[in-house]
């Protein structure tokens, strides 16, 4: 210890302190600060780049997922549209058929009705004519009353010959 104290050099202590403090201050201004700042900036830059890459990746994933979902939805919509269209088509066809059937049967019915009406009219006309004819025959028969029986018969035949059955 005594030797240590004896060896102690005030001059060296003084110069070392002066030099070291000056060195710290100078290096701080001209070296450590710029170096640490540059390194820090670089690290921040790398961190940011990594983060944004990660974010981009996530966005990409969500975009792909979105696309998939949209595609799926579109497909489902298309399917449902097609299904609807098919149903509508079938319905239209069925309706048309039904309508046609109905119309056809209505036409047939009306035709039948018309035929019936015509038939009835014909029958009634025939009846009328038969009545007229009977009355004419009766008239003529009455007009030629007192003639012979043979004449009467001949007359009936004659009248009958005149009447053409229609």
């Amino acid at each position, binding site marked *: 210890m005594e030797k240590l104290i004896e060896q102690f050099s*005030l*001059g060296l202590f003084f110069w070392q302190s002066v030099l070291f403090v000056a060195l710290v201050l100078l290096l701080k201004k001209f070296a450590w600060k710029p170096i640490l700042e540059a390194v820090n900036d670089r690290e921040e830059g790398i961190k940011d780049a990594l983060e944004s890459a990660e974010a981009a990746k996530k966005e990409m994933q969500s975009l792909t997922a979105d696309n998939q979902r949209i595609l799926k939805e579109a497909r489902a919509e298309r399917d449902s549209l097609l299904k609807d269209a098919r149903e509508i088509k079938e319905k239209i066809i069925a309706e048309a058929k039904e309508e046609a059937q109905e119309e056809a049967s209505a036409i047939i019915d009306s035709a039948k009705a018309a035929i019936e009406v015509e038939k009835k009219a014909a029958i009634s006309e025939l009846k009328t004519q038969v009545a007229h004819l009977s009355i004419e025959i009766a008239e003529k028969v009455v007009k030629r009353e007192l003639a012979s029986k043979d004449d009467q018969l001949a007359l009936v035949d004659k009248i009958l010959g005149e009447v053409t059955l229609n």
Partner: protein
Amino acid sequence: MFLVSFVSMAQHHGNEHAQHAAKETEESGSSLKKDIKDFIGHHLLDSHDFGLFSYEDDHGKEIHFGAPLPVILFDSESGLNVFSSSKFHHGEEVAENNGSYFKLYHGKIYKTDAAGTISYDEHHHATNEKPLDFSITKNVAFIFLVGLFMFLVFTKMAKNYKTSALPKGFGRLLEPLILYVRDEIAIPNIGHKQYRKYMSYLLTVFFFVWIVNLLGLTPVGINVTNNIAVTLSLSLITYLLTTFTANKNYWKHIFWMPGVPTPMKFLLAPIELLGTIIKPFSLMIRLYANITAGHIVLMSIIGMMFIFKNWIGSPLSFGLAFALSLLELLVAALQAYIFTMLSALYFGSAVEEHDDH
């Protein structure tokens, strides 16, 4: 763990060999041993000139290789004295400046008369007046060079970031270290909110101690961190930073420890207060002792190569020295790490924010 056991083993071996060698070379090697011991002692000390090596020529004259450094002295009589250390002629001559005479004796400058007489007390310590010595010694010159080197390297690195986000050249090696200090030392110990204001100090101290330790291992071998003045300066800055950035919570834990009975609070306050000083003190001693011990052991083993002078001892010493050098490389980084780590820990305790204790 392995390393620790290795060190103890190496030291054990070293001791054995040293004792063994001591017996063998009792007579012939005593002067060589003294030379080596002196050399180690001198290597660990600061000096007033930038000496690389020295040797004795055929006429027994010492030849020094190196450069003189400026000597700056404050003296009560003659005031400021500035002159070249070459005037001392490595302690052989008395230097004269402004009518005052100075002599270099055991690495220290003493004020003397024109003849250079040095008077001693009973413990053979010089009693001459010592002027305040602010000389640019070898260590001072060295830390200035290291400071300049660090400034150039790190400002160049900082400039690189202006043009590109990635480090270039030497920065590629330094950036992981800077990030290590930030992510493994500063943030875990100080916390996310507060760490920024200490980063400059932590980074500077880490690189300074590490570079100085590493360069201390080179053959130029100017070791700064084995000087108590340097480690004191560094730990004092840590202490001051801790003390002046501390928050209320820190002082409360020192003077009025919450959660303990009142008598204990009175007992704990001086202990805690002492603790604040012991912490940086331990920083100072740890760095100083580790580096000094490493150098003494390493140089002793290298010195043993010259003592053994046989086919077994010298290569063994060389192998040991080589292994120990590798270990010292690790210690150089480790001590820088520990100093920074503990500083960060103390800063962390100073700015800690919680009331539940």
